[in-house]
């Protein structure tokens, strides 16, 4: 049974790579968004099992999007992805309701383990 995953990521190449990885690990990518606003709208209509969302843009669109989605769907399962890690950022992401934070460039096994952890919660 595939996990229904939605991806919010502005970089085409990263989106493509994520799709490829997820395909090999029992995940079906049911929707893609390129920015925070689109992500919120798409989540509403798709209601995926899991959201992978990039928050490493200098502007805070990623964090705001997570906040909004969590407000509408408190049980939403969200994993944040960032290229610029700091303990403060990790705390911020967890505070707004994401379950985990993955750092780019990620290790595929690490990502898959994180997905399994979050889905099984």
């Amino acid at each position, binding site marked *: 049974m595939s996990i229904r995953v939605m991806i919010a990521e502005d*970089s085409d*190449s*990263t989106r*493509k*790579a*994520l799709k*490829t*990885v997820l395909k*090999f690990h029992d995940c079906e990518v049911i929707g893609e968004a390129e920015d925070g606003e689109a992500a919120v709208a798409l989540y509403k209509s798709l209601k995926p099992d899991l959201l992978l969302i990039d928050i*490493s*843009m*200098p502007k805070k669109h990623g964090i705001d999007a997570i906040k909004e989605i969590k407000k509408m769907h408190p049980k939403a399962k969200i994993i944040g992805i960032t*290229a*610029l890690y*700091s*303990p403060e950022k990790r705390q911020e992401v967890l505070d707004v309701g994401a379950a985990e934070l993955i750092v*780019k*460039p*990620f*290790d*595929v*096994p690490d990502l898959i383990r994180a997905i399994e952890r979050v889905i099984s919660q």
Partner: protein
Amino acid sequence: MASKIVEIWENNKKFIMEISMIGIIAVNIFMFSTYADVYNRIAEISQKYEPLHIDELFWIIIFLILAFANFSWHRYRELIEEMNERKKTEKLLRESEAKYSALVEHSKDVIMIIKDGKIKFANNVSEELLGAPPEDMIDSKFLKYVAAESRNTVKKRSSPDMHRQDGLNIYEIIMVKRNGLRVPVEVNATLIEYEDQPADLIVIRDITLRKRLESEVRRYTTKLESLVEEKTRELEQSYNRLQKVDEMRTELIDIAAHELRTPLTSIKAYLNLMQSGHVGNFTEDEKTTLDDMMRNINNLNALINDMLDYTRIEGKMLEISLTTSSITELAEEAVNDFKTIARARKISLKFTADTNVEIPMDREMMKKVFVNLIGNAIKYSREGGSVIVSVESGRGRVLVAVRDTGIGINADELPYVFERFYMGDTSLTRERDQMGFGLSIARSIIEKHSGKIWVESQEGKGSTFYFEFVI
């Protein structure tokens, strides 16, 4: 009448008594006849108003002469005494006058007596101050020598009410010399009695010099204040500029790091899939190549990390922010992070600490120091080697040591170990992992925490990196 008699008696007591004595003696001499005769004689005289006999007259005259002589003698003695008294008094007065005259005339200040607004006395110095000799000033109005704008002050300060208050009556006014020149003065006034009437004794001091100095001081103070203001503004501007530079630099580096990591993400993800067999079919040899590729990608990522660290720490103009937390816990955490790698390389990694020490620190930055030192220790150790991380406190300091039994550092290179771009022996690693920023960043971080970092090493035996803080 009675009081007049008492007065006469009081003033001439001695004289009257002496006269009486003489009188009694004279009467006795006069009266060598019996008391009866006297009595009869007096009765006769008083009844008949007979003229006195010549011998009676004689004795009366003698009596009067003696009385007069006595009187004259007394008066003479009194006059002599009075004269002496007067001479003494005059001498004292002269001396006193000489003393006060000396005081008044030798005073550097003007001394005047003002009664009813007129100058009744002025010492010699008055001529210096006001340009008129004291004689000319007597009986002229004091206000004549006071500038128009100060006259009200003088009037206020001269009224009797002013003096009745407690405290000093000192005030500043402008006076005017005879030739019209203005002089700033300080006036000190006291109420005295002069010729039985209230008058002002005033001491006037020329404060031209003081005023000039005061205005100089004011001028310099104002200049100084405006200079300080200017410099403070400049400093504030510089500070703001530097803050902006810091912000811009950080923003720039963050963007650069993000852009560099984006393609790496894709490459690494696909490579993972190839390594795990999801994509393609590779032989063991080919898989080795894949591993090499992965190592390079990780190196590249590490370089980006270094670049971020370098910019954030070394290039930073302003200070880091500190919160007090346990360095012992942080050290242990860092050691645990490396356990897996150490085990993989068959290197023993241990942690010891004697106490839990808390210091003000930037935790993230301090962690980087541990990661760098422990990472290096492991990297430059051979299989079977050991790395020990210790935290000790004592004598007001906390000392952290990372000791390895690795290849050590050449004595010639030891002084340069903490400099930027210094690379250890790269024969142990197959590629460059770093740009050589690690130790220079570590030193920067330690120094920003007001600590010291140093190394002891022997080539072939191992190295120990130390850093310490005062607590």
